[in-house]
Every structure is written in C-alpha cells, then in structure tokens.
C-alpha cells in the first residue's frame, strides 16, 4: 500500500494559541481517512494548513512522494489536493455548471488572446470543459440542475455541487470538511454512497466529520485530534475502544 500524503510534525499557532502541535499522519492511496475530534481540536486548521490557506509554522507535508513547499492554495490544487468547505463556499451567482467549469481552470490554458480570437483550439477546449463539467454534475447526482443558479439549489445539492467543483480539478486527494453538517438522515446516507463511489473510482478521501456513525461506517482509518495534538490513529473499531479518545470526548481522566 503506497502512502499518498504524509504530514510530519506539522505545527501552527495563532498568537499564543497552539492550534496544531507536531501532528504527523499518513494517508494511503485509495483509502477514506477520517479526521475527528471535539470542537476546536484543530481539524479545520489542519485542513487549511494542508491546502495552503494558512502557512504552517513547522513540519513538512509530502504528497505523492514530493514535498509540498510552503505554497499558495492554487499550487496545492495544482499538485492534486482539492477541498470543500465547512460552511459551503460556492460562486453563488453562477450556475451549477459554471461553478464546475471554474474548477477546470487549473487544467486548461486559454488566455486573453485565445478568448478574444476564439480559434479552433479554444473552442475545443471550451467544449471539453463544458462536457466534463456536465459529466461531473451527473456523477454527483445533480445533472438536472446544471443551469440553476448555485444559491437557489437545496442545501444538500449545494454540498454535492461543491464536491463536483472540487473533482473538476482532477485531484488525487479530495479533502471534505464536514460534508454531512446540517444534512438530514436521507441526505447523509446518499452522501455516504457518493463518497464510497469516489473511493471505488480510485480517489483518496480525507474526511473531517462530526457525525460519528458516518465516520465509523465509512472510513478505513481514523485519526483523532484533541487540543491540536493527534491522540490516536487506527481503524475505526479500535479508535472507538481507545480510552484516550473516550476521555477526550467525554472529558474523563485521560
């Protein structure tokens, strides 16, 4: 089993608050890896550090065998890590299709001159972008909503659209920040099917989630963060039995 992403002793602090302290974890290619922990444990901070929104203070991240330097978000996306956001961040006034087409920006080239002249190459590229975006909308199950404006979609569909947009960047690793937040049981079940489908199609998934049942049912391995430190990393069944983890969640003497 090959390691796709390896974080080594990643640290981040905001002023005096140590949000992440020497967090090391490794994600294997093709697995669904869960990242859980109580509120404020540093899960989203880890995401933001990983995807370049925050600069890490220390440690290193190796992705697909090459180290990710302290890089900006678009370079991380270029390397093959795509993400969604805890509070959905769509391009609200663009259609669903256009949202996904923006995701193709990275893998296409047309510039100003191409856009103005609109030669054969640009037209072909534009058609390919459109086709791929439409396919991805179908893939996540909202193909019929292609021409609806993003902010008019239902909550669950907005989550799906965000995943489709992330997939449009051709990622190797898809990082989902609480994708089931605010979903009802039916929507969560459908989301689970979608994520399992992603894995079946060869994608590696990193999942932050509060819904413990979803995490335990879906993930191959789980890491637990508490106060910015990793306190456990194992298969779900073992993590559930871990006294340190139980202590962190229930406030016991750990």
């Amino acid at each position, binding site marked *: 089993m090959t390691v796709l992403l390896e974080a080594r002793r990643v640290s981040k602090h905001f002023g005096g608050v140590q949000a992440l302290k020497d967090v090391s974890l490794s994600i294997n290619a093709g697995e669904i890896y869960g990242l859980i922990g109580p509120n404020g444990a540093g899960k989203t901070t880890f995401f933001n550090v990983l995807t370049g929104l925050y600069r890490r203070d220390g440690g290193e991240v190796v992705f697909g065998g090459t180290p990710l330097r302290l890089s900006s978000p678009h370079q991380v*996306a270029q390397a093959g890590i795509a993400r969604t956001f805890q509070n959905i961040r769509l391009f609200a006034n663009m259609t669903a299709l256009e949202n996904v087409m*923006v995701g193709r920006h*990275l893998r296409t080239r047309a510039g100003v001159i191409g856009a103005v002249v609109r030669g054969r190459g640009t037209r072909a590229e534009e058609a390919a972008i459109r086709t791929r975006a439409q396919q991805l909308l179908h893939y996540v199950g909202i193909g019929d909503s292609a021409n609806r404006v993003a902010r008019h979609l239902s909550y669950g569909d907005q989550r799906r659209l965000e995943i489709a947009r992330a997939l449009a960047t051709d990622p190797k690793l898809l990082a989902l920040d609480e994708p089931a937040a605010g979903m009802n049981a039916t929507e969560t079940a459908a989301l689970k099917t979608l994520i399992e489908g992603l894995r079946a199609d060869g994608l590696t998934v990193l999942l932050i989630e509060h819904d413990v049942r979803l995490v335990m049912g879906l993930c191959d391995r789980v890491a637990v963060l508490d106060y910015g430190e990793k306190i456990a990393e194992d298969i779900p069944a073992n993590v559930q039995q871990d006294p340190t983890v139980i202590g962190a969640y229930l406030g016991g003497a750990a």
Partner: protein
Amino acid sequence: MPNALRKPWVGIALIAAVLVVAPLAVGASLGNAWVRVLDFAALYVMLALGLNIVVGFAGLLDLGYIAFYAVGAYLYALLCSPHFGIHWPVWAVLPLGALVAGIFGVLLGAPTLRLRGDYLAIVTLGFGEIIRIFLNNLNTPVNITNGPQGIARIDPITLFGQPLSRPLEFLGVGFSGVMLYYYLFVVLALGIVFVGIRLQDSRIGRAWVAIREDEVAAKACGINTRNVKLLAFAMGASFGGISGGLFAGFQEFVSPESFSLLESVMVLCMVVLGGMGHIPGVILGGLLLTILPEIFRQGAGPLQQALFGTVVLDPEALRMLLFGLALIAVMLYRPAGLWPEPRHRSEYKQ
C-alpha cells in the same frame, strides 16, 4: 431554425443602420454640437466597459479609473504634438497607449492585491489623484506635461491621409469633423464591446467572476488569484488608455483638470446605474449619463425662460441636482441597475 437564425441579424442590421445614420440625422436637425455629444457618449461607453471588467466582472472597486484615461491621453499628447516636436501616427500611438495604461494598471494592482471593497476603493482613489497631481506638477525641473496649462495643438487623428477634424465630402454627402470622429469612436467602441463579450464568456471571464463571488473558494479551485486580478486591472486600464488617446486627438488639447475624481465617479456611476457586469446595461448607463445631463444643460434654461419668463435656477446647478435625484431613485427602485444581468435581478429582491 431559419427564423431563429434570421432574427438576431435583423436586430444587428437595425442597430448598424441607426449607428450609421445617427450623426447625419442629429447633425442635420440639432447641429454639430449634438454630434459632439454623441462622440463623447461613445468615449464614455468605452471607459465604462473598461471599468466594468474591473468592477463588474472581477468585483474590484476602483475609484481612480480615470487615471488610465489620463495616461492614454497624455501619451497621445506627448507623442503627437509640437510640445516635443514628435508626430507619431495614430496607429502606433493608440496601441502603445493601451500597453502603457495596462502597465499602469498592473502598477496599481500589484500593491493592492490583498485589499477589497472600501480599502481598495480608498487606495485606487489615491492613485487617481496621484496621477492627476503628477500631471499638474511635471513641468519642473524638466517640462514634461506643461503643468496646469496642459498641452495644446495636438495633432488631430489622421486616417488614410484624412485628418478627422476636417470635413469630408463622400458620395455626395457632407461629413463634418465631429461626424468622422463619431464613426471612428463607434467602430472602436464596438470592438471593445466584442472583446468584452468574448472575455466574459471564457475561462478568464469565469475566473474573474469566481474571484468576485468568493476569493477563497476561487483560490481553492486552483485559480492564481494574483495573476487573474492583475489581468483584470491591466485589461480594464488598457481600454481606458485607448479612449484617452482618442480623447486627446479629438480635443487637440489636454490638461490635468479633465481627469478629476468626479470623472472617475461618473464612469463608476455609468457601470453601477447601467447594471454591473452586464455589458448591454453598462452601454446603456454610459449613453444615458452622457446624453441626459447634456439635454438638461441645454434645455433647462430656455424651458425656464418660457415658463417663468426668467431663469430661476442656474442650469448647471439644476443639472447636478437632477442627476443626484436620479441616482437616488435608481438605487432605491432598481438597486441592481437599470438593465442588470437577468440572474442577478432577484438577488436584491428579498
């Protein structure tokens, strides 16, 4: 299908016919002063379309846009006048003006990349003023801009050996200078409309709108927001540079006072009133805000004379008053602009 194909062509042919006939009709009925107003309308439409790229597409509020107009105008003035004794041809000066203004756009954009909204507006406002003050003061120690007196006796725009300032008889129809300028301006404005439409519906245009909608998400989608924003500044500025060059050749005179903050505000009003990000709306905004004030200016005096027997309110003051009232009314009743993009309309209706 044939019907659907034919229809847009009918519309285009109609618009083309109106654009061709307009100066002749206006010139014959109202006189050349009103053709001149049409010339300025075309210039302002170009400016508004340029600013629309920055403000409407990329969502970067720019209050100093007129600086790029000034750069284009002064470049033309310096390269086509007795001031330095240089007389370059227009086909070389206009593209150069676009390029130089584009570079100034990047110069303004680079330090402001992390700013948005109000903060960006303040910095761009300062930039616009800096350019104007430079133009005002660059007459010592070396006289470059001739200071507040401005540069006079600029060469008129000359195409195919015909200076556009001189009347021309063509196919038995007499065209005055302002009419010739009108045709040039309209052709270039149409070119800018074309470029704007093509850009909007492209990979770059989508990236601009994505940045406007959510910059963090745009970054996460792999958009290099720095480059894409600088591109928006440069494109918008180059449109301003072209119209500035045309302005200088048309007026044959430039001075710093043509490039005051009020001008930036007017162009921004055209974009906002017309419908930010919607090219037909922006064109409408540019036309209305050039032509309507002129009607007030010329009509208010005689109208008062006829009604009250005397001029009660100074037409100039009345013009600004009505303009202000119109702005307030539009913002109250059509906050998305007079002709917004259809899908944005509902945004303000909650």
